[in-house]
C-alpha cells in the first residue's frame, strides 16, 4: 500500500432503481484503497460498474451501502478537489472550447488574466490551439475528449477521475496523450483513478490495476505494475509483455462471463 490512503472505498454496493423496472445491482461489495499520488487503473468488462464507481467517488450518486472516504472524510456531493473526465465528455455545448475551460477557473475565483493564461496553457497542452472559439458541435469526438480533459486539468484537482478518457482517440494521439498524462502526473503527483478497456494502456500508465468482475462488479484482483516508465524500451521489455498477458487473461475470463450473462 503506497503512502497513506487518499481514497478509501469500503464495502460499497450500488443498486440502480429505475422507475417501473427491475433494479440493477451494478456494484457488489467493492473495497479499494487508493494511495496518495497513486495512479490506479480500473479495468473490467463493459457494464461491470466502472463508471458507477467513479460517479460514487465523484459524489454524483449517493453512497447507500458501504462508505467512501476522501482524505478521511465521507464523500458528500461533488467538489473541485475531485476532477472528473466523463466517458461522453459532457462539454457545455453552448460554450466554446475556451469558455468551457474557463468555467471552472471562474468558479475558482482566479483573476481574469490568470484565467486566460491557464486556459490557453491547457488548451495548448491537449493540442487544441486554434480551436479555442469552436463549439463542441464543431469538433470531432477525439477533440471533444481532449477539450474535456483540458477543462478538468485546468482546475488542478488533487484527484483525477478519468472514465475512458482516451477512448475516442486514434492510436497516435492516444499514445501522445498517455505520455502527456504521465508527465502531468509525475510533475503534479495527483491521485488518479483511470478507467479503461485497454489492457496495454492500463499496464503502461498505472502503478496498480484493479480488475473488476462482470456485473455485479466487484474487485476480482489487484495487480501491481511498477515499471520504469522513463525506459523507452519499456513496451518491448519482457516484464511488460508478460504483465500485459497476465492482466489480459484475467480480463478475458470476465469479458466472456459478461458476454454470456448479457446474451442470457
Amino acid at each position, binding site marked *: 500500500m503506497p503512502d497513506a490512503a487518499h481514497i478509501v472505498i469500503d464495502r460499497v454496493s450500488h443498486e440502480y432503481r429505475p422507475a417501473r423496472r427491475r433494479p440493477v445491482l451494478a456494484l457488489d461489495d467493492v473495497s479499494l484503497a487508493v494511495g496518495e499520488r497513486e495512479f490506479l487503473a480500473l479495468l473490467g468488462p463493459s457494464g461491470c460498474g466502472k463508471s458507477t464507481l467513479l460517479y460514487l467517488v*465523484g459524489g454524483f450518486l449517493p453512497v447507500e451501502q458501504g462508505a467512501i472516504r476522501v482524505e478521511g472524510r465521507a464523500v458528500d456531493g461533488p467538489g473541485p478537489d475531485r476532477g*472528473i473526465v466523463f466517458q461522453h465528455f459532457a462539454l*457545455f455545448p453552448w460554450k466554446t472550447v475556451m469558455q468551457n475551460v474557463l*468555467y*471552472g477557473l471562474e468558479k475558482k475565483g482566479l483573476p481574469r488574466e490568470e484565467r486566460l493564461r491557464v486556459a490557453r496553457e491547457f488548451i495548448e497542452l491537449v493540442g487544441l490551439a486554434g480551436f479555442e472559439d469552436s463549439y463542441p*458541435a464543431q469538433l470531432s469526438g477525439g477533440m471533444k475528449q481532449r477539450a474535456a480533459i483540458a477543462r478538468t486539468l485546468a482546475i488542478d484537482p488533487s484527484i483525477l477521475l478519468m472514465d475512458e478518457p482516451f477512448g475516442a482517440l486514434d492510436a497516435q494521439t492516444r499514445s501522445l496523450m498517455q505520455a502527456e498524462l504521465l508527465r502531468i502526473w509525475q510533475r503534479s503527483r495527483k491521485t488518479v483513478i483511470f478507467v479503461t478497456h485497454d489492457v496495454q494502456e492500463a499496464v503502461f500508465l498505472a502503478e496498480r490495476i484493479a480488475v473488476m468482475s462482470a456485473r455485479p462488479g466487484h474487485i476480482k484482483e489487484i495487480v501491481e505494475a511498477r515499471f520504469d516508465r522513463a525506459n523507452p524500451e519499456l513496451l518491448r521489455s519482457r516484464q511488460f509483455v508478460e504483465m500485459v498477458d497476465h492482466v489480459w487473461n484475467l480480463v478475458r475470463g470476465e469479458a466472456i462471463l459478461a458476454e454470456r450473462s448479457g446474451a442470457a
Partner: protein
Amino acid sequence: MSEIETRFLAPPAATGIRLDLTGAVTRRAGAIVPLLAVIVAWEAASRSGIVTPFLLPPISAVLGRVWEDAISGELALNLGQTLFRSLAGFAIAGAGGVALGILMARRRWVRWFFDPIVSVGFPMPKIAFLPIFMLWLGLYDVSKISMAVFNAIFPVITATIAAAEGVDRPLLWSARSLGASERQLLREIILPAALPQILTGLQVALPISMIVMIVTEMMMGGQGLGGAMIAASRFADSPGVFAGIVEIAVAGLCLVKGIALLRGRLLAWHQETQEPTTV
C-alpha cells in the same frame, strides 16, 4: 484532356450549380405560391359574382382600405396597441413561465404546489375568465395583458419543465465538480442547456398571446386591431373587417418570423444551426 473525360467530368459540376440555384428559388417561391393562389382565388370569387362584394369584398378593395388606414394613422394606432399588449403579455408569460418551469423541474416543493394548478389550468378555456378579469382589473391594458399572460404562460411552463428535466446529468455533474453551486446550476447550466426546447415553447406562446389579444379586444372593444374589426362590423363596413384580417395576418407572420430569426441567433452553437445534412 480527352473528349470522354470532359464529358464525364463536366456534367456533375454544372448540375451541382443548377441544383443549388433551383433549390434556393423553389424555397423562396415555395412559400409565396400558395399564398398567391389564395389571393387570386379570393379576387376571382368576389369578381365573378358568386358572392356579393359585401360578403367578400375584392382583395384589391381590401388592400386599398389597408392603405387608407395606413395614411390616416389609424393602422399605426391600432396595430401599435395590439402589438404592444401582445408583446407585453408574451414577455411576462415568457419570463414567468421559464422561471416557474425551471423551479418546478428542480425544486420539489415548487413542483408539489404548482403541478396540480398547471394541470388544471392548461386545458381550461381561459377566455371564460374574461368577465372576471374585467371585473377585477377593468377594461384597459391591465386586464387585456393579463388575459394574454394567462393564456400564453402554460405552453412556456410545460416546455420548460420538460426541457429542464431532460438536461443530461453528466452536464450538471461537470458543472458541480467544476465548482458551481446548486443555485448557479439553474442559470448557468440548466437554462442554456434547456434553451432549444424553451424557445420552442416560446414560439408557441407568441402567436397564442396575439390571438388572445385580438379576441379579447373584440370582446372588450376599444383601440387595437380586434376592437377596430368589431367596430367595422357594427357599421356593416365589410372592407374594414377584411382589412383587419389582412393586417392581423401580416403582423402575425412578422412576429413568427421574427422569433424564428431570434432562435437562429441564440442557438448559433446548436447542431440545428450547423451545416445542412442529407437526412
